[in-house]
């Protein structure tokens, strides 16, 4: 089956730093989504991004579908950015199943 790999697994940064999180996938997909899970467990959808680039405030994401990867950029990190970031891909032959990466755990220190 398709493999979804996220890197790095853990990241510790000082407040104000920038970071890049990566998601690689092993096969063609219909779409890709990025999520943030805060320390209290709430999962928030950040981007629906099958291809191209999107920006939302300090966050932006780029998916290069032909090369099977996506990047999530966080600029000027704040402590509230801490948590786990997941990418999930939708298979080409399914419209309701997502394959999830293992996540990147981000800790922003004040």
């Amino acid at each position, binding site marked *: 089956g398709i493999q979804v790999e996220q890197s790095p697994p853990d990241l510790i940064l000082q407040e104000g730093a920038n970071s890049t999180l990566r998601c690689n996938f092993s096969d063609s997909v219909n*779409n890709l*989504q990025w999520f943030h899970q805060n320390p209290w467990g709430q*999962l*928030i*959808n950040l981007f629906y991004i099958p291809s191209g680039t999107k920006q939302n405030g300090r966050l932006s994401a780029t998916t290069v579908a032909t090369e099977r990867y996506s990047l999530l950029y966080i600029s000027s990190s704040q402590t509230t950015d801490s948590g786990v970031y997941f990418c999930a891909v939708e298979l080409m032959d399914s419209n*309701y199943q997502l394959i999830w990466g*293992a*996540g990147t755990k981000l800790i922003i220190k004040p």
Partner: protein
Amino acid sequence: SQTIHQWPATLVQPVGSPLSLECTVEGTSNPNLYWYRQAAGRGLQLLFYSVGIGQISSEVPQNLSASRPQDRQFILSSKKLLLSDSGFYLCAWSGVENTIYFGEGSWLTVV
């Protein structure tokens, strides 16, 4: 706007007891509905999904079951809980674009 709620938020249940987690979605019709479990650490595991009333697909064989009695209601159940059922359970819905939105989550501890 669409909202999703699930309850209870936390529960502690003895081994062998029944379970019922409920999830409702407001502000949309005929959503795809999902139950996920997240064990200690990361990784989300899809347990059940539903594309319509009474239509349930199971991804992982286990002692859990799901039902969708109404269009925007999704219930996760068990007749007899196991220790291994402990975890964080998340209900979710998706619409036309398949962008997925999660409920607040339910922390289950089986003792």
